[in-house]
């Protein structure tokens, strides 16, 4: 059995829009438009999409916050809304923008409270807390009231809070949003470590694609409430034709650059002293040997495809029909 099973999951919101001076029109907006998904135990899933694509709405349906308009959701075999309290014991939730901690109490007190709320045996709680303290460097601010913590410190606190009851699935909504580089690294490192252990399933929404590249073997891209890609990052590149580039720096401009088979010339820069080839079927060696015969090579470098470019292109693909009033 998969840890997460979604079948035709939909969420519609009715919004009232002004139509004329007094009249208001009801309009149905589909935030999630039929998502089918299976996530296995121990998977690290990146769930991405542009603003308003339905990422957070999906996550809220998976955690029992929102009831689906149609379709089925199962998490750990439970129905998120109907079995909300039982499910809460098995999942951890970090919503970047919303704190789970007690604002006026020291961080340590929040952790202690959570132990009671989740009925965690003292020994398990202590062991998990010790691990988080070590990996996330919590000791310096454990006795500080939450309202006085920096965003980075608070986020490390939130992560700990979400893990103290040993959840089977951890949902993270924008866990690195607004963090400085050091805190981002700390959070990513911690999640990577968690993923390596292999028994916690991670579902992560983010705008920061570095999170995905660093953490997630599997990537689900949604747009307009539908899944537009589900697979590895490599598969995404393959599908959307992103290729590695070879950049050759020359000593002198070359008026007629060679055209090796399987590696078309992508662009010419620096007045012809820099040539950029796209690697399709050819390898780096073919490009280099084609150039070596006609020019003096100063430097050759390979540029890995940028996931950000791919995703940006994906988002720009024409949207399905604009939502009509229902």
């Amino acid at each position: 059995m998969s840890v997460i099973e979604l079948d035709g999951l939909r969420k519609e919101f009715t919004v009232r829009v002004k139509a004329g001076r007094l009249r208001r029109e009801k309009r149905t907006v589909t935030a999630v438009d039929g998502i089918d998904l299976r996530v296995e135990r121990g998977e690290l899933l990146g769930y991405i999409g542009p603003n308003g694509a339905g990422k957070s709405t999906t996550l809220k349906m998976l955690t029992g916050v929102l009831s689906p308009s149609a379709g089925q959701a199962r998490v750990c075999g439970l129905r998120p809304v109907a079995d909300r309290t039982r499910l809460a014991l098995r999942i951890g939730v970090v919503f970047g923008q919303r704190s789970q901690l007690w604002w006026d109490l020291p961080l340590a007190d929040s952790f202690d409270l959570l132990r009671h709320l989740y009925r965690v045996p003292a020994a398990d709680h202590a062991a998990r807390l010790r691990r988080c303290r070590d990996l996330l460097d919590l000791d310096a601010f454990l006795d500080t009231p939450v309202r006085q913590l920096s965003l980075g410190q608070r986020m490390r606190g939130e992560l700990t809070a979400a893990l103290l009851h040993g959840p089977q699935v951890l949902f993270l909504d924008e866990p690195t949003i607004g963090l400085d580089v050091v805190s981002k690294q700390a959070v990513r490192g911690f999640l990577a470590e968690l993923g390596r252990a292999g028994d916690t399933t991670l579902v992560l929404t983010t705008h920061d694609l570095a999170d995905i590249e660093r953490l997630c073997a599997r990537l689900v891209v949604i747009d307009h409430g539908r899944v537009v890609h589900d697979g590895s990052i490599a598969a995404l590149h393959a599908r959307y034709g992103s290729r590695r580039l070879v950049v050759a720096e020359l000593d002198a401009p070359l008026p007629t650059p060679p055209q090796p088979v399987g590696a078309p010339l992508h662009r010419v820069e620096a007045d012809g002293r820099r040539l950029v080839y796209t690697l399709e079927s050819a390898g780096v060696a073919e490009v280099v040997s084609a150039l070596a015969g006609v020019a003096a090579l100063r430097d050759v470098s390979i540029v890995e495809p940028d996931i950000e470019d791919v995703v940006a292109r994906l988002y720009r693909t024409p949207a399905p029909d604009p939502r009509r009033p229902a």
Partner: protein
Amino acid sequence: MRAYRALLGAQARSQTAYRASFLLDLLGNVGATVFDVVTVLVIYGVTRELGGFTLRETLVMVGLSSSAFAVADLLVGNIERLPGLVRTGLFDAVLVRPLGTLPQLLLMNLPLRKVSRGVFGVGVLVVALGSAGIDWTPARVALAVVAPLAGVVFFGSIFVATATVSFWWVDSGELANSVTYGGRDFTSYPVTVFEGWFRAAFAYGLGFAFVSYQPALVLLGRADPLGLPPWAGWAAPAVALVAAALAAAAWRTGVRHYRSTGS
């Protein structure tokens, strides 16, 4: 149960962290309830009867009303924060914890400073019952205990039901206040003071007559000038339970209807 106790403990700790300010809050909170009593006293300064009832009789109703309201306000009044939680989406945090939503919400910020109000309200009731010259029978003693408890449940249900509206309509705070605080004022006077559709709606439509007026009639041994039989005074617990059931149903529907906010 242990979980709820832990929540309550945390609340007590953060609220009593500043002792002097907590004590001032305790004192300040008595104020509102004192005002209810003073208003009634002032009215009886210019008239000997109100709706056919003497001061001592009316004070029994004031006591029933203010003790029930103050205790309900202490336990459930905190739900007034719901519209804010719904608007900001902070209600999400309540939904991802392994506890009932309503108890969590009530304990998350239990206003301990309102304890003084509850104590004062019960005090008013005891004094009013003592001075009203009631012919005490075992049945009346039982009613004097049960009626305020039913009142607490009833007011609590009104608090919950009116707050629930904010799941559909976020700016519902004023509507909620007009029913809850309006209900408190309504129950501080004999129902006979009011007239027409207003009396029908508040007293019997919403059921406020069963908080203080009907039980007070039984306690005082008076027939209802409006013609309801004596057992109406004993209907208070049943009315409270119906109200609680309706409020619980409204709450469950409301939570399902919660829309959260964008991330």
